[in-house]
């Protein structure tokens, strides 16, 4: 039986008394799986992703990542756990503006405790940016910035990658380059969870979870997603 990389049991998240972002969500994501989370804005996709990564905490329920119960961990423990187990990819890239591409990758190494310039350089080469390592984010295109973000997410060799709209700010060509890298990572055995609005991206994954009003409304494999897609497209 395949082990669960991420296991959520009855996870509920309240932002305040009246705002419930997640409503008793239970979900198991196997190691090496590629899952897309889709749903309309405000449905709880990003909250779910943040709770998986430990960036946010649940109001109730249990979260296990790589067989570690992270539910009750304090902020510093969660940070430590995250940097060793999870790579994060953001829609806005979130690169440090005054550091070069290489340094943006090395900064993740620094927080991990092992700075290796050569490894960071190889990491950037793997995403096709070997020639842009000394450029600052403002000197890079959106696609290149996203690839730096991916290189940074991978540099500490996490086995789980969580991506929030990784192609959301990219044109078709750059989006495809990023998706190619993600496909490669999945083939290498990484567990990948992507939050997306783009059905074409979602269809490339092995499993699609649809969120509505903080609940999982559908959980399917791409071959069965035509109806899900149709429903999304007809939602006002």
């Amino acid at each position: 039986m395949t082990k669960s990389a991420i296991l959520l049991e009855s996870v509920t998240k309240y932002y305040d008394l009246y705002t419930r972002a997640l409503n008793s969500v239970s979900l198991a994501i196997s190691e090496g799986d590629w899952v897309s989370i889709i749903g309309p804005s405000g449905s709880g996709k990003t909250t779910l992703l943040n709770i998986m990564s430990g960036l946010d905490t649940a109001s109730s329920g249990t979260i296990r990542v790589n067989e570690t119960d992270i539910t009750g961990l304090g902020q510093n423990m969660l940070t430590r756990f995250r940097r060793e187990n999870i790579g994060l990819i953001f829609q806005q890239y979130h690169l440090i503006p005054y550091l070069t591409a290489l340094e943006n990758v090395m900064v993740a190494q620094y927080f991990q405790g092992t700075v290796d310039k050569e490894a960071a350089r190889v990491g950037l080469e793997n995403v096709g940016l070997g020639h842009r390592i000394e450029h600052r984010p403002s000197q890079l295109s959106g696609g290149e910035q996203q690839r730096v973000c991916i290189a940074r997410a991978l540099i500490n060799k996490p086995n789980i990658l969580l991506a929030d709209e990784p192609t959301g700010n990219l044109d078709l060509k750059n989006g495809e380059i990023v998706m190619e890298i993600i496909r490669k990572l999945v083939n290498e055995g990484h567990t990948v969870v992507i939050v997306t609005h783009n059905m074409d991206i979602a269809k490339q994954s092995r499993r699609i979870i649809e969120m509505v009003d903080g609940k999982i409304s559908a959980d399917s494999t791409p071959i069965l997603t035509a109806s899900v897609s149709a429903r999304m497209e007809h939602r006002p």
Partner: protein
Amino acid sequence: MATSVEEALSFTKNIKLCLENDARCEPTNVNILIKLVKLYNYDKSLRAGKMFLRIVSKSLSKRRSRVAIAMVAVLMGAAMASGLLTVSSGMQDKLGKEFRKFGSNILVVPKSDRIEVGFPGISFGSVTEGQDVVLAGTYFDKTFPDLVTNGEVWRTGIRKIAPYWNVEGSWIEDNNDDQSAIAGISVAEKLNLRLGDYIALSYQNPENKNVSSERLKVVGTLNTGGSEDSQIFVALPNAQKISGRLGMVHSVQVSALCVECPAELIGAEIEKKLPYTQAKTVKQLVRAETLIMDQLGQMMLLITIVALAASGIGVMTTTMTTVMERRKEIGLMKSIGAENLKIASIFLTESVIIGFGGGVLGYFLGNILAQYMAESVFHAPISLVLYILPVTVGVSLAVTVLASLLPVRRATRIEPAIVLRGE
């Protein structure tokens, strides 16, 4: 060390055995392994340190204007602290010298008060026609061989220790002058004396009742505003001759200048060196000196504290603004694995650099300020005090770090999930 490929391979294999705790591991290799681990750890720390400095330096250079504002805030406080400290340290010396212009602060008298020869407050009986005045003998200007510097001349006398004495006419220049007298302004007015007039003195020895007479020319009139105005002054040897007490004195006035030590201490030292004497401090003057010094010191301390507090508030505001501006960056750092300590260390190191820079620059600016103050108040330059440099830098660092604590706390409380989604 390995010298060939085979040796290198064998060495590597042995190291591998050591790592696997295999019994075949050679003990010498364990030591090499320990050294390698140490070297690796050292290298790891070095690289982490370099990366840390790179983050801090680039962050500072990216926000030059904010850094400059914070540094100016520190610089102002540091300059004020340094300037006032420099003035304060030089002021004690200079104010002490200023106070010495008001006369002696120690009076040395015999323990047994039997010798009555001439000094303020001691009456000689009837010295003029129907008018009793005090006759005082003193050195007006006297040089001695300097016992401390051995060979140089040490100059003293009433003109040196009481520069506020205002003499119209001329001073008695020669200490052996037995023809001249200086009359206090009140005596001169009562006796209607003018410069060049002669006065006849008669003195009755209280022991043998013998009466001696002298005729002295008034060469000057004295106006001090004090008890001296009611006295007649002659050269000390002349007073000793008139009173028949050659080589004797009743009291010695000492104008003691000692920075940061009470006049009582010098008095005690005099009593130790001159047995049978009593060294009394002129308490009013000493107290006034101490009071003024203390009050000036307190005022400067207050100004310094206010200036440092103002610069602390400046640094706090700037750092708080910086934290707010860098919320996303902080959130990002946390999301990719930075613990609170690492976030805090980045901000505090930036503060330390700003505090150090501001402190050093403030020290030099403070010195310029101190020079200006010394020139305008004391009309003399003030010397550079080096120990104030580490004090100023230390205080600046303390103020900067303290002022940064609240913003840093705010930084560590930033929730990455919230700031990264743009709220």
